[in-house]
């Protein structure tokens, strides 16, 4: 199975390639991709050089253009696609039907992957994208169990890529407006979730309080592991009790299920984290690559060292396990 690794900067890209990534995914420094964070991502020139470096080392480059085109500004996305293809991208990762149609029509030879943001969670949906846009691979939403994935794999006409490590969306991806409800900025439209521009950390006595826009998201007592100020991992009051209404600050780790994923027909394993530093990328890719190449019984020991790098310093197998629901 291929290992698909994140890169938010050319430096992280090099680390990923050097650590043994089979493919690296990245995006332009604008609103065309879902990690549109300040100071992150690639200029055209940086992408071109990164792709050349990857190619020399036998590694592929996937370019994410996985936000939804802003009405009237579609040219920004069309140019992004044209430039990524000119730079030599091995695949484009797309979410917007209008953009998929454009790419399928103008660049029929270009390999097209369906972003997790497209929310294709069943065979009918996936085959629709294969038949309509000639999609070659789908990144499955993190709403499926491994049994679901195995069943889907039997009846679709393209490859499957699944998230195995890193940030965990609790909500169906590409279908969440929680962030824009609180901040006006959303993953679909702006490529950001719970954006830094609206985050405030406040010390209240010994507690660390995180706020997003006008809303309190969490309160961490001293010494407790913290998480991103994302809405779906906030602590809230429901009726008379306080707690994590949707999910704890936790990140995804299903490396323990590699054999089951392989049996389910998964072609590629995806690591989340384009917003993370190059040290994270280097360490995670190195360990994951070793784990994929190791016999199952040796994987646990290898992977345990990644936990300290995770949100809340905890991991979960998320929806891949049915009881999570």
């Amino acid at each position, binding site marked *: 199975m291929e290992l698909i690794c994140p890169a938010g900067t050319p430096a992280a890209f090099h680390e990923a390639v050097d650590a043994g990534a089979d493919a690296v995914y990245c995006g332009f420094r604008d609103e065309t991709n879902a990690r549109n*964070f*300040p100071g992150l991502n690639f200029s055209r020139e940086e992408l071109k050089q990164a792709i050349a470096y990857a190619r020399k080392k036998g590694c592929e480059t996937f370019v994410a253009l996985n936000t939804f085109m802003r009405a009237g500004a579609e040219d920004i996305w069309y140019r992004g696609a044209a430039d990524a293809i000119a730079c030599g991208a091995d695949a484009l990762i797309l979410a917007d039907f209008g953009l998929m149609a454009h790419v399928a029509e103008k660049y029929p030879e270009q390999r097209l992957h369906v972003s997790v943001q497209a929310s294709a969670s069943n065979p009918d949906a996936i085959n629709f994208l294969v038949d309509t846009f000639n999609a070659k691979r789908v990144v499955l939403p993190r709403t499926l169990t491994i049994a679901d994935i195995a069943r889907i794999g039997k009846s679709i006409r393209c490859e499957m890529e699944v998230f195995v490590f890193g940030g965990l969306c609790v909500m169906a991806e590409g279908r969440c407006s929680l962030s824009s409800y609180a901040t006006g900025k959303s993953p679909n439209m702006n490529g950001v979730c719970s954006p*830094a521009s609206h985050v405030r*950390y406040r010390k209240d006595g010994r507690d660390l309080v995180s706020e997003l826009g006008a809303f309190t998201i969490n309160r961490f007592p001293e010494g407790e592991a913290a998480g991103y100020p994302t809405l779906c991992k906030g602590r809230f009051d429901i009726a008379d009790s306080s707690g994590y209404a949707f999910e704890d600050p936790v990140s995804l780790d299903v490396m323990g299920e590699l054999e089951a994923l392989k049996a389910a027909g998964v072609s590629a394993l995806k690591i989340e984290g384009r917003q993370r*530093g190059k040290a994270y990328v280097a360490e995670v890719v190195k360990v994951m690559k070793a784990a994929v190449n190791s016999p199952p019984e040796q994987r646990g020991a290898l992977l345990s060292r990644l936990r300290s*790098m995770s*949100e809340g310093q905890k991991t979960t197998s998320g929806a891949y396990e049915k009881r999570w629901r």
Partner: protein
Amino acid sequence: MQLIPPLLTRPLGVVPLVVIERICRLMFKRIGTAHPGLFERLGEHKAKRYAFLPTDVPLAFVVEPASETIFVSRKTAELAADAVTEAPLFMLLALMEGRCDADALFFSRDLSVTGDMEAMLAMRNALDASTIDLSKDLARLAGPFAPLAGRVIGEIRNRALGGEATAWN
């Protein structure tokens, strides 16, 4: 946990502030020369002021990317900065070199950030995108303060990063 041995912090307490600032500016300038595009990624956030407060040293460092200047002061209540990062000194240096992941340090509560998060995130990413290597970049440091600067940086790095520093180099 006392990460920086008192032996090392004591001199900083007695060295006049202007001298420390001169050393820092020298180092800062040297890094700027070695990495000309360093603050390009900051975009609109280039005009802001960034404070770095080592939790184990009684000094505050404020970086002003627009004027390519660093200011050093004793820690006081009032700090004219848009965004503030607090962590042990060795972590701040490791972050500068992209040797550790800021998010992971934040999750573990070793690092805290206040103020303009977007600006600080941009700074984090700009530093991470650079290939700053203090020992390499400062090796060619010259002038009367060079030996002291070299000793301080070298000492902090070696002690703080311990065995891992060797692995990384």
